[in-house]
């Protein structure tokens, strides 16, 4: 028995204190929606805060695009208010703040929390037949630790310099020598790190200990596999980042000498002597986390897309085990490829060769996944609804994002395209084109379970169509800019004569980015409208197999009236001889 009243075997026992016990409505509200230990409520909390941050991060991106299309011009409507002193235009320093905060928010407040925090929390216990997470209180803490992080970032943006301006990679000495917002940024990320670590320990324990009887590891849906492997990645990689962040903070506050070398002339005035640090040390520590973080940000989406596509195609997932093995291979290799971010950093060029080889190798399991998804829809009976469309869009975009990675793995070519828009194109195809489109699909797919109503499918398809067009319109031309050498992270690239003719391309990209933002308004209206006025959904609207569809919508605290017995894997669609085209995992054989 754990303190929360569940036995580890998953057998039913006293469900913990129902929320509605207090007669005071305020206490009841706080207990149900704010300080809840229910994994579903925590999942929704993560979902809503991530969606809000997605909006904020997106607006920052639009400001970046504005500057690149119409440099040093007044931003319409909001420019005068935000930059009164500068005549309504973005300053070079604030431009650096923009891309730093865009990346920080999108990575740490949107993609990671929405995948692991929102869907991880909501789906893991429901999909494996558990009543809740193994450690519900720790789960609640993992969400509440996000708020100090939010506070730190907002505070950092309220400082006179309006936020950190050294890029999300925070390379010292720049991040140590200049700017005061650095400490707040670092503190914020430490909170995020602790939150994620608590979450990942919880997920690993839950998956290993609380599966329903019959739910063997190889009967788990790919969503759970993706989240499980992600949790392992986080548990091993995050401590390194957290340690590195603390070192960076100490460097700033106490001049400890981890990263700053001898004889530095900060501002060309005062040489700093005798510190004996090494800037490359930070890069190794940082990328040791931040490369696995790339997989943290895509593996759960891969899992969810696998489930949505198999259900949408009414066909078993093709190559279930190879799919799992390739995820395990990605996570293993993911730990030894970080050096490909450092091919021209000054790191040993012999070391670069070994990182080049491991990076080439990691393309293999990613390729295997794509082939298996194609095998899944081949010969199926595709249902062209919003979740399936977003799933298909995920594959299409992941092919592009994955393939362009080959160029970066090739060290001599990387020397040319690193630090350029080619890199920006590549990781946005993976993070936006794949992960975020996958997340949208997952929202359409699990919305009925979360809120008991359907999202509007027609507007979902419009949302998909516009997003798909504008994602490509925005990010595809960036490949060409990068080939030309067009640099990322520069407030005004047109200072360089060789880049002046690229202005029209950038204006085209910016128009597409505005189109993409407009498409998200459709999603927002659909999402909010469906919460209140959506068509009422039955418990299993997609006729899917996994366990979460066997419980009523907006499942009660404790999830299952009775812990289900699992008889088969989650992908028995169109099983020959079975009377319907799906066969739920917990349906007893005749």
């Amino acid at each position, binding site marked *: 028995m754990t303190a929360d009243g569940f036995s580890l075997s998953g057998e039913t026992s006293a469900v913990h204190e129902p929320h509605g016990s207090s007669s005071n409505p305020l206490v009841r509200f706080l207990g149900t929606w704010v300080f809840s230990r229910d994994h579903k409520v925590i999942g929704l909390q993560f979902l809503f805060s991530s969606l809000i941050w997605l909006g904020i991060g997106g607006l920052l991106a639009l400001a970046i695009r504005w500057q690149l299309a119409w440099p040093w011009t007044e931003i319409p409507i909001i420019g005068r208010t935000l930059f009164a002193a500068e005549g309504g235009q973005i300053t070079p320093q604030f431009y650096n703040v923009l891309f730093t905060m865009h990346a920080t928010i999108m990575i740490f407040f949107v993609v990671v929390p929405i995948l692991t925090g929102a869907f991880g929390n909501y789906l893991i216990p429901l999909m494996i037949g558990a009543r809740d997470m193994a450690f519900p209180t720790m789960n609640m803490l993992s969400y509440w630790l996000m708020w100090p992080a939010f506070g730190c970032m907002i505070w950092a943006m309220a400082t006179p310099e309006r936020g950190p301006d050294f890029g999300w990679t925070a390379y010292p000495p720049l991040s140590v020598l200049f700017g005061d917002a650095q400490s707040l940024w670092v503190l914020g990320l430490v909170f995020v790190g602790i939150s994620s670590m608590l979450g990942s320990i919880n997920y690993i324990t839950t998956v290993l200990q609380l599966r329903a009887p019959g739910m063997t590891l190889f009967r788990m849906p790919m969503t759970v596999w993706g989240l499980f492997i992600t949790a392992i990645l986080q548990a091993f990689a995050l401590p390194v980042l957290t340690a590195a962040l603390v070192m960076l903070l100490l460097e700033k506050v106490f001049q400890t000498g981890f990263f700053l070398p001898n004889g530095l002339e900060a501002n060309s005035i005062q040489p700093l002597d005798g510190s004996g640090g090494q800037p490359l040390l930070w890069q190794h520590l940082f990328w040791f986390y931040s490369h696995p973080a790339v997989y943290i940000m895509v593996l759960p989406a891969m899992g969810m897309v696998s489930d949505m596509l198999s259900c949408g195609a009414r066909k078993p997932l093709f190559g279930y085990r190879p799919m799992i093995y390739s995820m395990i291979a990605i996570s293993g290799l993911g730990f030894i490829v970080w050096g490909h971010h450092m091919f021209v950093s000054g790191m040993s060029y012999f070391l670069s060769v070994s990182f080049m080889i491991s990076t080439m190798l990691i393309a293999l399991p990613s390729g295997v996944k794509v082939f298996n998804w194609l095998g899944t829809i081949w010969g199926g009976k595709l249902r062209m609804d919003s979740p399936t469309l977003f799933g298909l869009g995920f594959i299409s975009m992941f092919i592009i994002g994955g393939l362009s990675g080959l160029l970066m793995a090739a060290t*001599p070519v990387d020397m040319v395209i690193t630090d350029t828009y080619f890199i920006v194109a590549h990781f946005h195809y993976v993070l936006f084109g794949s992960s975020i489109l996958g997340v949208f699909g997952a929202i359409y797919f699990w919305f009925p379970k979360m809120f008991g109503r359907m999202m509007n499918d027609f507007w979902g398809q419009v949302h998909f169509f516009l997003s798909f067009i504008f994602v490509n319109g925005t990010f595809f031309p960036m490949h060409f800019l990068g080939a030309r050498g067009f640099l990322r992270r520069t407030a005004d690239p047109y200072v360089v004569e060789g880049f002046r003719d690229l202005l029209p391309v950038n204006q085209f990209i910016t128009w597409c980015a505005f189109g993409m933002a407009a498409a998200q308004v459709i999603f927002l209206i659909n999402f909010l409208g469906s919460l209140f006025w959506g068509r009422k959904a039955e418990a299993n609207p997609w006729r899917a197999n996994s366990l979460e569809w066997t419980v009523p919508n907006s499942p009660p605290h404790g999830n299952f009236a009775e812990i289900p017995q699992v008889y088969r894997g989650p992908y028995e669609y169109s099983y020959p001889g079975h009377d319907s085209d799906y066969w739920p995992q917990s349906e007893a054989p005749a």
Partner: protein
Amino acid sequence: MYRFWGLLFFAVPIVGTIVYALAMLGVAPFAGLRLPANYNQAGVEIAHLYNVIHGIMAVVFVSTGLLLGWSVWRFGGRQLSGGQELGARYFTHSNLLELTWSVAAAGILVFLSLYQLNSWAENKLERPLVEIAGRMQPQPPLAKVVAKRFGWEFYHAGPDGRLDTPDDVYLENLLHVPFGEPVVLQLESRDVIHSFFVPGLRLKQDIVPGMQHFVWFKATSPVELEIICSELCGWGHYTMQARMQLVSRSDYDRWLAEQSPWKGFAAKEEQE
């Protein structure tokens, strides 16, 4: 509707490949969207690699993209064909297929890994050798490049051919370099990390303070190239650029002889 979506997914590999091909061929309106003109001997090999990898990518991109489009076109309509509902085919896996595509992909990746090694070695591992005092030794740098927020200092080795001597020639934001012969540059930074990027030479090297880096190249023609900093170094990062003037050896020697040595060196000696 499924036909519409089928067309959309077909469009990705088709439109993508056409646009990419036009850009790489330099056809209007996509002219200028490819690797910049190359003035470095080693850059030829890099462009070749770039094209080879694009070829491999194109094959995978088009074949998987068409498969995806075809699946949607063909199997999206299944429930409607002949007014009769057709079921999905039940198949779960094929070890033979998995093995085939894994081995094929692995083969391509191993080929790529090996194929690029020479170019990397040429650019970063094999510094040119010259004969000094009867022994083959690494070629000494022609000039020292010092990066600082937000500009470049160039110290050309004077007529004695050695750096950090009283005859060094100093220029701000302008580097003179002879073409047609291997040139080595020594890179240093005064404050934060910068990056020495010359698009025309297909050359990039981060400059980490506290370290010395060496880059080398063999320029092919007398042009003026832009040097830009490609590592974020602060608010003025976007302004940090310089020019590289490529001249013939004889012009270079004549130019060097005409310059007066950098006075700062004597001052620095005195200070120390």
